[in-house]
């Protein structure tokens, strides 16, 4: 959950009074809150953490980071976590130890 992923802002709009946008992470498009990056415009790259843009970055460094995440196959899992949770879950929770 701690990753910050760079993405490209595709559009900016207001939803319930909050500045939101569509952001493209190497093909995966997500809705992102842009309230904290008032300077960011359509076409800019921004680092996104749990659905919030936290800072602007330049395109070259954004592309480089995306390439690394792609190699580590971390992008899908971070952005669509509920579809991956079952894979990681153990079949049943082990009872760790008895209480006394």
């Amino acid at each position: 959950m701690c990753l910050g992923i760079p993405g490209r802002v595709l559009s900016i709009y207001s939803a319930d009074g909050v500045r939101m946008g569509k952001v493209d992470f190497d093909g995966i498009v997500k809705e992102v809150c842009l309230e904290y990056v008032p300077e960011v415009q359509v076409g800019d790259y921004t680092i996104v953490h749990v659905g919030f843009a936290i800072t602007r970055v330049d395109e070259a460094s954004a592309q480089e980071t995306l390439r690394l995440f792609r190699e580590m196959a971390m992008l899908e899992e971070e952005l669509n976590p509920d579809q991956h949770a079952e894979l990681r879950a153990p079949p049943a929770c082990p009872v760790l130890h008895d209480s006394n």
Partner: protein
Amino acid sequence: MKYLDEFRDGALAQRLAAEIRQHTTRPWRIMEVCGGQTHAIIRNGIDQLLPPEIELIHGPGCPVCVTPLETIDTALAIAALPGVTFCSFGDMLRVPGSRHDLFYVRSQGGDVRIVYSPMDAVRIARENPQREVVFFAIGFETTAPATAMAVLTAKRLGLRNFSMLVAHVLVPPAIEAILNAPGNRVQAFLAAGHVCSVMGYWQYVPLAERYRVPIVVTGFEPLDILEGIRRAVRLLEAGEARVENAYARAVTFEGNCAAQKVLAEVFEPCDRAWRGLGVIPQSGWRLRPEYRDFDAQHRFAIGNLHVQESPICRSGDVLQGKIKPNQCPAFGTLCTPRTPLGATMVSSEGACAAYYNYGRMAAPAPLHHY
């Protein structure tokens, strides 16, 4: 050097490593605070590129790992209540509480959902007015702006069925606690880049001065980390205790002012217990009294929890850099990512899981005592 070809620019990595070797005249111990950096260091074998004098100590910068057992047990109790929809980041579901984890609660019929963003939990609350929707707000300063905005949004929408179990933790007080701990071994810090994207790095300047310790703001990619180490070594060798920013492409001195303003509006500092480390003064954020209606702790008043840590787990020693994960007797045998005894084995950013996932099974050679 088998890892070198995995670097984007192997030649540059080689040059940075050579420069570090060249400048190192004495043993130094450097802590990378952030779990994301720990993960990258072990995955890429960065520690093995360094001269033997440099020891990396893996810090407590994984929010999943440091959320105290009592809070996990509170989460488990709330999630099991009828009428509650409990929303969390995925990593938290397998964190062992005293008796079980959130996956277990779900298997027993609890409505536990994994969300990507706290705003997803606000949406679920809005769409399900008959449910009590609770979000498990863990994380460092990087994550807190998101949960703060979720509360503001819920308030503006007039949602009465949304609340948060808040367990936010802060980096600078943790660094100070590590420096103050008896027997502290850390001589320099790599500060977590994205925490500083939000908060800037002005908070670290007085720490560097007071404790005479170099602090380098560092990114997450292998080359970023090598560069952070290179700068830390240079400062250590020169006897200079100051803050340097090695992640300028995403971090400014002031940080993100818009985010800091909202954080100050919604949260106030509080003492916070860290799993494995104990209570650190003023090291957390809780909701301000004006937002108490959104505080799950207040709303659900779960009392009388008997918490019990695994008697075997040594994650506290791991988090303080006293042992490496593979020096824990349970590592890789009783304790694996599928059967974690402690939180540092659960999250991919936890030091124990990083060592396990990247095959660091053997305990390191005993350290020389200089």
